[in-house]
């Protein structure tokens, strides 16, 4: 067996190249959602069922949905990990300032102010790198938007002009203006990571994948995580959840039987456990337990979540919801637009291909 790894940014292009050239791997990692569709609709991937991979029956439906093609509802990959958008904080800084995880938006603001007064940058985030705007928006705003908004949006009863959505954007922009670093709109992603990992900032809004990165940058850092709160302490605290990708079999592979057998192993608890232990990622395999306390906590937080909105539902056409929200949030952060205008821009922009908005 030969194993090859590639850089993330070009992965889809490389994979498509190899598959189209007939030199594709037997088993491969594929992306989820829109990223999967590119490869799967071209017919390169073997369809998976609970007959061929029985363990899939126990997977969470949302995890499996991430690896389906919408048009035929068929499943093409064994999902391997979920990622969670939330707030990561520096425990030592919180302890030194006598702070606790916030239960309401006001508490979040108050504790940010306290950090600022103490000379600590409250949030390390910067928004010069486009995609960071999306993680900031949904890592901080999912609870403010709320489950009801999400359900209504999915049911076609609401669009992005909904005040639950636009009010959340407004609240995020206010926090950013006050409690992000000076000049955060010009601060790129690596610099923001650096600010947090070096202990100059108390919190970082980002994905659960950041935890390993921070521990790599600063092995002494002690991390905590919380779901950004809603308006009041009674509102459900939601994280933004998405599935990272999956393992798929090459439909034209020479060793298809062996591939399926291998996929069965990849869907097993044994593999999921090893994956979680070694890679410090939340495995999607049901029944996996987490030695890492932080990972266990993230796994708990996942029980109260809404999908990471733009990735899960709005990356199937051009313009993608991600591209739109990233640009619009950059505008909002530099005072060039309003939350209401963003709602309009998203709704009319997505109407180009998203049918529920086309009326």
């Amino acid at each position, binding site marked *: 067996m030969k194993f090859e790894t590639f*850089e993330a940014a*070009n992965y889809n292009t490389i994979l498509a*190249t190899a598959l189209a050239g007939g030199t594709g791997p037997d088993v491969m990692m594929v992306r989820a959602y829109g990223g999967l569709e590119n490869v799967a609709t071209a017919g390169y991937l073997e369809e998976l069922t609970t007959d061929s991979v029985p363990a899939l029956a126990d997977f969470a439906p949302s995890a499996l949905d991430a690896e389906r093609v919408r048009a035929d509802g068929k499943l093409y990959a064994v999902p391997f990990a979920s990622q969670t958008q939330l707030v990561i904080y520096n425990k030592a800084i919180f302890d030194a300032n006598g702070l606790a995880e916030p239960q309401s938006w006001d508490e979040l603001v108050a504790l940010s102010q306290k950090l600022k007064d103490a000379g600590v940058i409250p949030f390390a985030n910067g928004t010069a790198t486009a995609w960071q705007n999306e993680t900031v928006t949904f890592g901080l705003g999912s609870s403010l938007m709320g489950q009801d908004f999400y359900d209504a949006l999915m049911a076609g009863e609401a669009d992005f002009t909904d005040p639950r959505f636009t009010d959340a954007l407004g609240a995020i922009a206010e926090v950013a203006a006050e409690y992000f670093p000076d000049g955060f709109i010009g601060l790129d992603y*690596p610099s923001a*990571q*650096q600010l947090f*990992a070096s202990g100059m900032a108390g919190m970082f809004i980002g994905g659960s994948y950041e935890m390993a990165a921070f521990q790599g940058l600063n092995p002494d850092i002690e991390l905590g995580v919380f779901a950004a709160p809603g308006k009041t302490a009674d509102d459900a605290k939601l994280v933004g959840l998405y599935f990272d990708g999956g393992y798929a079999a090459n439909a034209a592979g020479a060793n298809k039987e062996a591939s399926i057998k291998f996929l069965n192993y990849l869907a097993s608890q044994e593999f999921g456990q090893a994956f979680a232990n070694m890679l410090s990622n939340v495995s999607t395999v049901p029944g996996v337990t987490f030695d890492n306390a932080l990972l266990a906590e993230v796994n708990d937080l996942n029980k109260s979540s809404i999908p990471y909105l733009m990735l899960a539902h709005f990356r199937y056409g051009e313009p993608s919801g991600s591209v739109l929200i990233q640009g619009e949030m950059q505008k909002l952060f530099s005072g060039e637009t309003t939350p209401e205008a963003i709602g309009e821009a998203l709704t009319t922009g997505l109407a180009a291909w998203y049918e529920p908005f086309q009326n």
Partner: protein
Amino acid sequence: MSAEATYYDRRGIMGTLGRDGLLQIILIANTIIMLAPIVIMVFSAFKTTPQIFQSPFAIPDFTHVGNFLKIWTQTNFLRYLLNSFVVTGASMVLILTLGTMAAYAIGRYQFTGSTFILMFFLAGLTLPLKLAIIPLFMLMRDLNILNNQLSLIFVYTAMGLPTTVFIMTGFIRTLPNELEDAARMDGASEARIMWSIMLPLVRPAMVIAAIQNVVPIWNDFFFPLVFIQNDDLKTLPQGLTTFMGEYTTDWGVLFSGLTLSAAPIILIYIVLSKQFIAGMTSGAVK
């Protein structure tokens, strides 16, 4: 004023000392602007990150080479450097060999279609090849050399040929026929004539053509970005992006990485500045 007086001696034509004073100030100011970023880069390479933040302009302790050691021992930098040498070297050999061959044929012999062939090469001068990256990508895939340095070497060779053929043909045409004819009388073969009589004469043009091509090839980022994914195959500019992404926390290392990347070409340029300037502007100076 003597007949040989240079233009500079006839100062009266272009105005007074006052004007020269102003021009001198412009030049000095510009040189400061040109050199300051490079000086700050080199200085910062010898500083720790806090020193860079606190006193960016201070002269560092040049014995502090910890940043460079880190690059030497902990990164793939040497590999990128070696790859750049291999790719640039192989491309230059191909460009000069093939370019001289074509120029020699066009410039030294009369045959039907020679003008057309020269035009064919010259057409390549003006075409921005970046815009053909999609077909090039597919072509490299079909040749099975994606993620292989041959893809870079081939593209660079093709890109370098038009200017080389242009420069070399012009030069070869100016060479006298006598030596060649005499050798031909003696029964020397065409290959022998080219190799031992003509080639030594075209060396100056080869130097110009080499410099004109070596800088863009050494510095290129776009084609590796599309063709090369494997970290061990990356050239310096592309490797630099990987490296800059990994060491974002350590500005001392970042600056020493930039300094090390810039050093080879800066040093060669300082030694050969005349040839560099002549070579790199030769396409634009008529």
